[in-house]
């Protein structure tokens, strides 16, 4: 073949024409060479690069798409939507198609007004990236999306739609709801606690696609459909929640308190009707919250020293054990010296004082006396039965357990019994105390609190329904009958008098606790004002706790928390159509 080529070249050089046979040979040789080259190339492609190329080819037309599951909605007890789903667009710019500096400047000027952005800042952002795709803004509003779609006709703008969680009531119930993040995954509150129920399971579709991205009908296709998330129906009543949050806002404004919480529970079931905390956040824009501690629900997650509201449990234990009766009289000095420490009442000495009067004036010395009559074993046994220092097992994340030193603990001393009797030296959550006092309101049954009443699937079928659960019986009904009258006395002629309401018997106990220092001891004038109670006293419709942190207008709970309690109670009487008794206009 080489000889033929040489001969042909020679013939060309000499200018003589090639014979037909030689020409055929030349052409044949060229084809053979081409065939060899093609064979070599085919070998490289088909054999050497087979695995890599076949993978690339497959990836070009056969791929798997994730089919997202629709996140379950959250409703209140009346079916009002608290958390739903919507979509939002993210704005991207194809920087490779964006040309000169002047073009970037013009685009920045064009985008700034609809995006509510500074044109210079936008220009700087657009100038930093020269290639690839730049995510310029996420979660556009509907108006912004419409405007961006218009602009996308002449500019290299792209919009990508994604699912987004929406909370139509803004800050309402935010600590209970939590939020779903940008990936639509729940965090904090119910969104986090019930993530498996709400989130569902995404599906997938593996299929061959045409050049337009459409699935080829007769091609390979495997589809695993998504399982949508379940819906939650809460025991919370949105109307009551709104009343409570408004009353709390007004109360905090008038008292100058730095923080506050209100919880309302149905004493017969343990269902939470309202749960409010301040400061709060808007779950729609949770990412604007600089301090993540704002997402923590203080009612469930944070502990405090309850102060005199705790006496409700001590009086109940004393009555239930028969250590005191409604007719018992106790004489106590203004101050008592216990184990070298002087403990005083806020008021003067009391002589021949009944338990009712003692609770009405919030007598610390009587509290110690009752605790000592009970003895450490019975005292702490009752606290344990009331669930103090234990989880309530409410269906909310990160519940605090609180801390109660038991006599068997190394840190416990006899003084603890006395200080614990008026709510010092122990730490509990507001929810724990509310749950414990619920037992006083309902005849002695400790109920398990809950927030989610029902879980349903997307077809409306009930997946699970929460049934009221009695954790244990704590008090005799005779004890609760006496306690009810004693607590009514607190409102009628004691520290809770600001809650007194014409026509209604309200049972309550106020509390003013000092704020412990992290290193030990208590802060000077800072207090936590609180009140806990139930109404109507004879057939309670609700149990409520109001707690204000560091009120400024007064350090006493009876002046700060009680008016909020009364305000909410009045509204609830109307809302629940509770008829007044012995009403005289």
């Amino acid at each position, binding site marked *: 073949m080489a000889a033929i080529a040489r001969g042909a070249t020679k013939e060309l050089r000499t200018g003589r024409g090639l014979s037909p046979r030689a020409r055929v040979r030349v052409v044949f040789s060229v084809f053979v060479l081409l065939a060899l080259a093609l064979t070599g190339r085919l070998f490289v492609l088909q054999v050497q690069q087979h695995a890599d190329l076949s993978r690339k080819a497959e990836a070009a037309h056969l791929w798997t798409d994730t089919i997202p599951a629709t996140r379950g*909605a959250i409703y209140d007890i009346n079916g009002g*939507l608290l958390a739903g*789903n*919507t979509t939002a667009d993210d704005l991207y710019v194809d920087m490779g198609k964006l040309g000169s500096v002047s073009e970037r400047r013009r685009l920045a000027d064009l985008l700034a007004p609809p995006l509510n952005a500074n044109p210079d800042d936008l220009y700087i952002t657009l100038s930093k990236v020269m290639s690839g795709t730049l995510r310029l803004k996420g979660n556009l509003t509907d108006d912004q999306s419409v405007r961006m779609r218009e602009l996308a006709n002449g500019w290299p703008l792209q919009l990508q739609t994604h699912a987004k969680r929406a909370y*139509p009531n*803004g800050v*309402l119930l935010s600590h209970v709801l939590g939020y779903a993040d940008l990936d639509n995954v729940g965090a904090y509150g119910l969104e986090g606690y019930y993530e498996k129920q709400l989130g569902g399971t995404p599906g997938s579709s593996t299929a061959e696609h045409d050049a337009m991205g*459409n*699935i080829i*009908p007769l091609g390979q296709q495997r589809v695993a459909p998504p399982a949508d998330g379940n819906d939650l129906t809460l025991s919370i009543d949105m109307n009551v929640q709104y009343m409570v949050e408004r009353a709390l806002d007004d109360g905090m404004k008038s008292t100058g308190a730095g923080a506050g919480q209100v919880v309302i529970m149905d004493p017969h079931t343990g269902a939470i009707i309202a749960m409010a905390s301040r400061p709060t956040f808007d779950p729609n824009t949770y990412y604007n919250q600089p301090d993540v501690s704002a997402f923590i629900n203080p009612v469930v997650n944070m502990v405090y020293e309850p102060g005199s509201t705790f006496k409700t449990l001590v009086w109940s234990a004393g009555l239930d054990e028969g250590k005191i009766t409604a007719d018992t009289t106790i004489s106590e000095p203004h101050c008592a010296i216990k184990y070298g420490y002087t403990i005083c009442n806020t008021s003067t000495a009391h002589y021949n004082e009944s338990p009712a009067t003692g609770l009405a004036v919030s007598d610390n010395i009587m509290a110690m006396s009752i605790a000592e009559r009970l003895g450490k074993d019975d005292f702490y046994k009752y606290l344990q039965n009331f669930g103090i220092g234990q989880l309530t097992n409410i269906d909310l994340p990160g519940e605090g357990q609180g801390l109660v030193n038991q006599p068997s603990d190394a840190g416990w001393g006899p003084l603890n019994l006395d200080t614990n009797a008026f709510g010092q030296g122990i730490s509990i959550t507001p929810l724990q105390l509310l749950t414990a006092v619920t037992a006083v309101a309902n005849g002695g049954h400790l109920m398990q609190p809950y927030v989610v009443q029902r879980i349903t699937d997307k077809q409306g079928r009930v997946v699970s329904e929460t049934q009221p659960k009695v954790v244990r019986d704590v008090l005799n009904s005779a004890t609760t009958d006496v306690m009810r009258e004693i607590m009514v006395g607190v409102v009628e002629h004691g520290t809770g008098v600001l809650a007194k309401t014409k026509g209604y018997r309200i049972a309550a106990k106020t509390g003013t606790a000092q704020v412990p220092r992290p290193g030990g001891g208590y802060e000077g004038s800072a207090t936590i004002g609180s009140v806990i109670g139930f109404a109507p006293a004879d057939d309670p419709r609700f149990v409520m706790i109001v707690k204000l942190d560091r009120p400024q207008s007064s350090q006493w709970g009876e002046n700060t928390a009680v008016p909020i309690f009364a305000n909410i109670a009045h509204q609830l009487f109307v809302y629940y159509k509770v008829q007044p008794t012995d009403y005289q206009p």
Partner: protein
Amino acid sequence: MAVRSLRGQIRPLEDAPLRPLEQARARREHLPYYLDLHPAVRFLLAVALVCAVSLLYLMQTSRVASENYRLQAAESRHTDLMRENQHIQLDIANLRSLSRIDDIARHKLGMVPVGNGYLYVQVDTSVVASATPPATQASGSPPGVVVGNNPLAAKS
């Protein structure tokens, strides 16, 4: 009588022995309904049959493809409608938002909270009970006339 061998050669039947396939063919050709067609006709018929089957297959494929695109369009529309439904639900929830209603009541309609200004009125329940019209209507009475001790009903 002659038979056609497997190679298409015609030979007399008496040139036996025949091979099994040739015997089968011979038997077939003796059948009364045997259709003796020219090979060219057979070929054309076979081509026509293949064409018909291919056409049928193509039509079915085309139909499946077109239905699939319709299905995809319907699924896309379904997704859009679900999304729209979610938007509408949220719009309803936004419009029902208590803070919005409160704001309108206070600032647009000039309403004020009732506060503690409730007045409960004692009502004589026996009067209310007697004023309640009975549920039954007497036979023979004209429509709208209720028999009972309700004075308003008696006047009508």
